[in-house]
């Protein structure tokens, strides 16, 4: 029986990134994916003829350009198209938009408040300063502060030096930023509720917290530190849907000689004398590997795939309590024609960006209150995009694909499992909300896929359907992600590594965890990557 150098559990974007780097370094890598397609939460699926759905993740900004280059993803078909701003509709029939153009953006905000219009620059400056601090850390293994290894000490010193470049005022600001609620943070800059509600959305996406919960300011930062071709903070559409990212990775992987097996559900990680030696598939087949790398989240990996008695008690305790709570759902809709939003003037670019309906902080927090009580939000927060306004490859001409990210949506409903009827009722609250602002919306719907945390967990394998493989709060970042002492992609089981978003620097279609994990594995093997660019300079 063939023995691989590396067996990868799961073909999500981080698994494929790590697999690519390892294969290119000269290892023989096998990617095992339980679904009949690869991609994890970055997929484009034709669920109705002629339409491609980005049915989990739906926009792209965080994916590191260094990785795109190293793995030759453009050659394998990846293209990311920047889009312009977006808007939130207000209940009184107006909207507030954001624009790439600085002066248009200011004039738009000035419709609501001249003060806020001019305050935006200060806000953008402060957030950008924090992004500049974080960005270089994404592509580095987090230092272990309790280790005395020279590398950890030097990484800690690097962190200290980066921090030292701040003025004392900015240092204080950083600590506040990493721990504050997005609501409190925005209060320091803006007076207008709808402006705050608009900007706060990046602070709650994918997080089981409300805008008034401490820690959400950092979540906002996480959504701002990406880029499209050097334009920091910009978001774009992957041409062909988010599956284009993982298809390019899979193509690059295979081109360098890697093997992918789909339809291979993994039941257990095999160990011998405490060391990982491969995996056992659901049908009992054993697949052997010198190393096993898990792209699955930390809970799925250690609470389902590894025998608990192989793990230290404290570790298991920490994994059990790693916060990875389902908070969102998703509607993927095929539309017969472009929906109309009478509030938007003709020719507005907003239709090509992200659209929202939650126009006050209180509505956003109330939506979270429902989640706390174990209900999906009666008045949900929706992040809606129509990528086909810029990407002609995802729907027939004149028809459109719409992605609606919906929050909040609990993993269980008041202590019981979701039913199909619950799911349909959930979808209806969202469609109703859209239809309130877009007359005739229901009539345009040709097909719709509805995903609650139940569907996301069942298909993608994300525990509780948490899109980040663990919440992005300060207690779960850097050397605490996922577990203190195990933040460097290694695990208590020798030969078993983690490479998914449960590890530093966290979730989003970023690829950095996969890349960093590959770097650590190669270090352990005393091997060098064929090509692994350091993080681009932030100058």
């Amino acid at each position, binding site marked *: 029986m063939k023995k691989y150098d590396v067996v990868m559990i799961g073909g999500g974007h981080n698994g494929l990134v790590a697999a690519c780097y390892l294969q290119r370094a000269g290892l023989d890598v096998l990617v095992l994916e339980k679904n009949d397609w690869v991609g994890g939460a970055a997929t484009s699926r034709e669920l109705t003829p002629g339409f491609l759905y980005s049915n989990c993740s739906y926009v792209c900004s965080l994916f590191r350009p260094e990785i795109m280059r190293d793995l030759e993803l453009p050659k394998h078909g990846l293209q990311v198209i920047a889009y312009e701003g977006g808007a939130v509709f207000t209940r009184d029939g107006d909207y507030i938009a954001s624009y790439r153009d600085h*002066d248009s953006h200011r004039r738009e905000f*000035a*419709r609501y408040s001249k*003060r806020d219009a001019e305050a935006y*620059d200060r806000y953008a400056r402060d957030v950008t300063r924090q992004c500049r601090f974080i960005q270089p850390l994404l592509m580095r293994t987090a230092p272990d502060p309790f280790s005395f290894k020279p590398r950890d000490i030097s990484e800690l010193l690097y962190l200290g030096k980066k921090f030292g*470049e701040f003025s004392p005022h900015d240092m204080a600001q950083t600590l506040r930023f990493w721990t504050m609620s997005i609501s409190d943070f925005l209060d320091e800059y803006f007076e207008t509720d709808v402006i705050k509600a608009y900007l706060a959305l990046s602070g709650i996406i994918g997080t089981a917290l409300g805008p008034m919960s401490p820690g959400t300011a950092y979540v906002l930062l996480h959504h701002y530190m990406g880029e499209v071709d050097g334009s920091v903070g910009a978001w774009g559409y992957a041409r062909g849907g988010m599956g284009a990212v993982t298809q390019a990775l899979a193509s690059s992987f295979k081109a360098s000689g890697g093997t992918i097996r789909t339809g291979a559900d993994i039941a257990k990680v095999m160990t011998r004398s405490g060391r990982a030696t491969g995996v056992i598939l659901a049908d009992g087949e054993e697949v052997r590997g010198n190393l096993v790398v898990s792209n699955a989240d930390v809970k799925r990996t250690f609470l389902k795939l590894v025998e608990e008695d192989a793990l230290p008690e404290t570790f298991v305790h920490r994994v059990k309590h790693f916060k990875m709570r389902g908070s969102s759902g998703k509607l993927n809709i095929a539309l017969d024609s472009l929906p109309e939003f009478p509030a938007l003037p003709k020719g507005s670019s907003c239709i090509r960006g992200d659209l929202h309906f939650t126009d006050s902080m209180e509505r956003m927090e109330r939506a979270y209150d429902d989640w706390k009580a174990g209900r999906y939000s009666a008045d949900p927060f929706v992040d809606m995009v129509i990528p086909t306004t810029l990407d002609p490859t995802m729907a027939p001409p004149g028809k459109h694909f719409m992605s609606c990210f919906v929050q909040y949506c609990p993993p269980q409903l008041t202590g019981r499992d979701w039913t199909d009827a619950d799911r349909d009722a959930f979808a209806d609250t969202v469609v109703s909300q859209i239809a309130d602002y877009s007359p005739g919306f229901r009539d345009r719907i040709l097909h719709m896929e509805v995903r609650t945390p139940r569907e996301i967990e069942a298909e993608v394998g994300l525990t509780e359907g948490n899109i980040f493989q663990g919440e992005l709060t300060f207690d779960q970042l850097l050397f605490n992600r996922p577990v203190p002492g195990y933040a460097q992609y290694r695990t208590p089981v020798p030969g078993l590594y983690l490479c998914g978003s449960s590890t530093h620097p966290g979730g989003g279609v970023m690829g950095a965890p996969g890349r960093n994990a590959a770097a650590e594995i190669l270090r352990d093997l005393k091997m060098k990557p064929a090509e692994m660019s350091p993080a681009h300079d932030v100058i």
Partner: protein
Amino acid sequence: MMPDLATRLAQQKHITTPRLETPFHPRIAALSETNDWYTWAGYKAPHSVFDEELEYFAIRSMAALFDISPMVKYRIAGPDAERYLNRLTVRNVAKLAAGRVHYTAWCDDHGHVLDDGTLFQLSADTFRLCCQERHLPWLLDSAIGFDVGIEEETTEIAGVALQGPTSFAVLSKAGFEGIERLKPFQLADFAHDGGTVTISRTGFTGDLGYELFVPAAQALSLWDRLWTAGRLHGIRAIGYAALNRARIEAGFIVSNADFMTAETTLRADRARMPDEIGLDWLVDMEKVNFNGRKAILEARRNQTLKHVLVGLEIEGNIPADGAIVYHRRKQEAGLVTAAIWSPLAKRNIAIASLARPYGTRLTEDFWVEIYAMRELQYQKMMKRARIVPRPFIKLDRRAANPPGLF
């Protein structure tokens, strides 16, 4: 207070004009031969109108009209306006008087310059602050505890600078009676088109000149009045390229060109104190309290000031903009932020920011490395530079009283 729905809806149409046109735009567009526009604070503004070099000579020989409407303007009014501005800005506003203008700057708590600008005292308790960047949150937050109102009035008020030796003749011909009594930095109101135009004897050229402010609705009639009166006095419309040459000769600095304003810097070390950008003379330490006072005082006392802004005269005639300044040809000492060949001084001049003690204790043996791209090849030159006082030119006609009638 958030504006009501009708007001907000009416303003939605801003997206149809992503570049605003100033109130003078129809006239400038009609005169424009080069069709050479750039964006100034969201407005379409002329880089040149007919020929940037000839436009410069219009400033120095005749009269030049330069549209300054995109300047950000704040109206600050109320019983505490003077006290408020004294707390806000580094200069002593008590020494200003109604009908006068002064150049000033304001700082954050760390003594870093937020912007520079001109403060017009329109009446005992009404002021207008003109500047490059936008500061409404800062101005409003600073007003807590003061009985003062602050309104941003950039779009409502049109401004035009009339600069050059015949500018006084143009205004006299245009019938602004009493204009001859205006001394430098004085302002007065004059009747125009059923309303009022505020004219100050100020400018950004170091030449004889005036700045005129009117409500936007009266902008075109004001332009026409000046244009008609100026016909025999060589009046021309000019763009920023020509003005920039004149302002460098006059030694004036431009925010976010010669220094970075504190609220726009991403890098902590880029902010500057007044003493670091040649504005130490504005700072009035006699004032008991103004923002940044303590930080500036400490920096002076502890000698922690890091930079200094100097005028340079560079050998040869190749402008050195963006060049690195060296001490003894080897040690990096600073950066040239603006440079031209000065037609008036017949010298190669520059404004530079040096890292102390260069420019303070060490004042000799500076060199400038110029990379001049000529037909796809860099001509690399190391040229000797001498620190000289600003302004680089001094024109008697600027301050003559009464002004010369050319």
